[in-house]
């Protein structure tokens, strides 16, 4: 099931990339990033069966970073929503040149 898992991980990652590029709702963009992280986790777990248990340790670290990223990112979205009354990333142009 190693090859199937890698194919599935590639497909999920690509769907996540498409989602990040075509959606404008900041929260859904965030969910697509989580999907990409999960696709990488799947590849890690699948490969750990031939490359050693360390793959599963890294999955643990990826999950921790994802949790921290979700907490900080959603706090930023709430802060921006207070200013702009919107979560549409077309409106987030403060850092744009």
């Amino acid at each position, binding site marked *: 099931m190693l090859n199937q898992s890698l194919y*599935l991980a590639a497909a*999920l990652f690509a769907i996540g*990339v498409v989602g990040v*590029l075509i959606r*404008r*709702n900041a929260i859904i963009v965030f969910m697509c990033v989580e999907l990409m992280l999960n696709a990488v986790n*799947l590849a890690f777990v699948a490969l750990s069966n031939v*490359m050693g248990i360390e793959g599963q340790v890294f999955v643990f670290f990826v999950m921790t970073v994802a949790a921290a990223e979700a907490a900080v990112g959603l*706090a930023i979205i709430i802060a921006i929503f207070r200013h702009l009354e919107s979560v549409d990333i077309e409106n987030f142009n403060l850092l744009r040149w």
Partner: protein
Amino acid sequence: MTEPSTFAQIVYAFFALLALGGAVGMVTRRSPVASLLYLVVTLFSLAALFLLLGAQFIAAVQIIVYAGAIMVLFLFVIMLLNLGHDVRSDLRGGIWILLAFLAGGGLWGLLFSSFGPELHLPNPGKVLLPAQAVQQTDVVSAIALPMMNEYVVAFELTAVLLLVAIVGAVLLAKRRA
């Protein structure tokens, strides 16, 4: 890894299709809440796939942390910002869709062609495979032992990262006094 049984392969295919369907549903649904529920389907299917791949502890953590904590956080923010019934489509038009499918398709093709039927993995040398590690100790210790020995610095830094994330989230979401 031993050859999986036909039953395991059927269950694997079922959850793989469920994961793909959930991912496509998440990207295409208009309502953020519907999107989120499709993502939960994907995350649960991935937990099942982790079980089939012999990573029981990771599967449990996937359900507790992702399908439990992170998804509730997302749902809470959607409800808090009152976005639940905003069904106006937020899909980008024209050039962006083309660009997205070029980028996604290109990445997909690149990854697919590099996996292929004969996967060229580097020789891992002498490593401890999950099946052996579980046999030597148990499911949790198999992950805990390398984490507390070789990767103890990264593990401690994770604690600092989580502390910074908590402080940062509180500071950012707090109303200016």
